[in-house]
């Protein structure tokens, strides 16, 4: 009886452990198709509740969200899974500082090491569709301007004890009959920013806010709604070119 029980238990254990082992490689694969994103201030991860000091003033994040699209690895398109935060070709990342956060990209397949590229912003064909008929995360009125201008590619709202400051990135110079009609031709300033980085598996993607705000004096007048004639917007656009605030960490 005892022998039978022991044999049964061993068999159960053997089957269970082989099942666990069989699961393991899958677990690793799962991790390899996810890139975590971290908002950072001068390389230090930051959260909404953190006080950050800019020009001797205390600031807090109130809202930081952005759309990334057109993911490629070594020039080959890489698709994302479909969730409420992403569609195969695009993702909405960030936080509203009220607990609605998304800080990861989930790809349909594992990512090998290589040149990872993506675009901050949305492609023209997607940007001016009817948002009513769009599916998540493109039906999100907080990130939407109008048919004419499309989406806010990046929305950063910050608050000091004295005033708020905001940077909303999106296309400008879009010609159509009214704000509620989509443009037929591409906008004069698409204001999308391509990023390419050397990727190694398990690296995290950091979005460094300090680099984005480099040389910007935060004042009630320097908030930027993507008007390219405004010098602060020019500076912010410059800060977004090349790798800009994007960095993979830890370094390979």
């Amino acid at each position, binding site marked *: 009886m005892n022998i039978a029980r022991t044999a049964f238990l061993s068999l159960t254990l053997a089957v269970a452990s082989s099942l666990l082992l069989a699961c393991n490689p899958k677990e690793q694969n799962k991790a390899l198709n996810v890139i975590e994103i971290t908002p950072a201030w001068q390389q230090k991860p930051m959260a909404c509740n953190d006080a950050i000091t800019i020009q001797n003033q205390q600031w807090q994040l109130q809202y930081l969200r952005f759309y990334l699209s057109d993911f490629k690895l070594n020039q080959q398109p890489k698709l994302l899974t479909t969730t409420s935060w992403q569609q195969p070709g695009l993702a909405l990342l960030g936080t509203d500082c009220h607990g609605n956060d998304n800080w990861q990209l989930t790809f349909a397949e594992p990512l090998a090491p290589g040149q990872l590229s993506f675009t901050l912003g949305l492609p023209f064909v997607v940007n001016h569709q009817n948002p*009513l008929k769009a599916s998540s995360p493109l039906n999100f009125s907080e990130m939407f301007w109008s048919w004419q201008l499309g989406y806010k590619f990046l929305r950063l*709202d910050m608050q000091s004890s004295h005033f708020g400051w905001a940077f909303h990135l999106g296309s400008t110079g879009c010609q159509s009959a009214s704000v509620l009609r989509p443009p037929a031709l591409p906008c004069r300033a698409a204001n999308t920013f391509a990023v390419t980085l050397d990727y190694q598996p398990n690296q995290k993607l950091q979005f460094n806010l300090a680099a984005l705000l480099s040389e910007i004096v935060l004042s009630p007048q320097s908030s930027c709604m993507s008007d390219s004639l405004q010098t602060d917007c020019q500076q912010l656009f410059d800060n977004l070119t090349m790798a800009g605030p994007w960095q993979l960490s830890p370094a390979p």
Partner: protein
Amino acid sequence: MNPFAPRKPLPLPLFFTILLLMLGSCSKPTTTDPAWQWQLPEGMPLPVVPAENPMSQAKVELGRYLFYDKQLSANGKQSCASCHQQQFAFAEPTDRSVGSTGQQHRRNALALVNVAYNNRLTWAHDGLTDIEQQLLIPLFSETPVELGLTGAEPQLMQRLKKPPYPQLFQQAFNSEQPDMQQVVFALASFVRSLLSFQSEFDRYAYQNEDEALSPLQIEGMNLFFSERLECHHCHGGFNFTQATSHSQQLLDLRPFHNTGLYYAARPGQAEAGYPQHDRGLAELTMNSTDDGRFRAPTLRNIALTAPYMHDGSLTTLEQVLDFYQAGGRTITAGRYAGDGRHHPAKSQFVRGFQLTDSEREAVLAFLNSLTDPQFIANPEHSNPWLAHP
């Protein structure tokens, strides 16, 4: 028999017998009511309805009788419709509502327009997401008393045993016996049926009728959606409020804002802010950064729903425009004296702007294009007791 031979179709009479049996098994007495059809323009997403209270024509009809019935107040003096009047898009032309016992409410009655889409209800409550929950406030609240039903439920149930209710309850819930849960479910269903999508703006925006708006209204619309005016930051989406969710909208929004209406010294309080008797969301969250934060209401039918703001303290749309143009309100004298423009929790999108006289006229013309005349004339939303006294 060759298993790969094409299957012989069922003999026709047998097919119909099976079909009839299948149909017959579905048609229990409870489902004699026709399925609910949302009256929505093409492409408009469906509202999200709680699973325990699906829409039906019979529930909406019962809810309509209840909504307009003064017996729903303990003293028989008020119905829901006393403060939510169809001709004013189910708001009322009074700064702050008065309850059935004459008690003054501290807030302005909100319009009931496309409430089926609201992800937050009332002026400043973070947790009220379903109409079924919200309804308990007007029905049972004691501070202030609105319909004042607390303790009067047995009397109400007696009243609801008189015609036409037994038949209406039977059709809606398959039982002539009324109960409070059913009253709430039926009222919620009626409120969900109050949909307004037939304004001139809708025809322009969603039916693609370029002629539906005048050039002046289009100019105003362009200004409304501009970064200069920033209106759409809080009054965004197809309902002109962030407090909107629908079947395609999976992400939650937080739709409360301080617009700089008050910044007054408060007796016994270290910090100035909104008047002590109504501090908005801060009352619930106990967080001073939520002081004066109220939900941005829909702008649909806004020309019909004067006066404005949570306490009805702005009388006309022109005043509202002046208020936002100034970036808040300065009160020079009295209990609430102070400069609301400097409230530290004020939304950064209320910064003030300049408008020429013609631009101002254009914005007002646009706001008027959000009026839906069919909504306020729709007999399906009207008082059924006038037809059956």
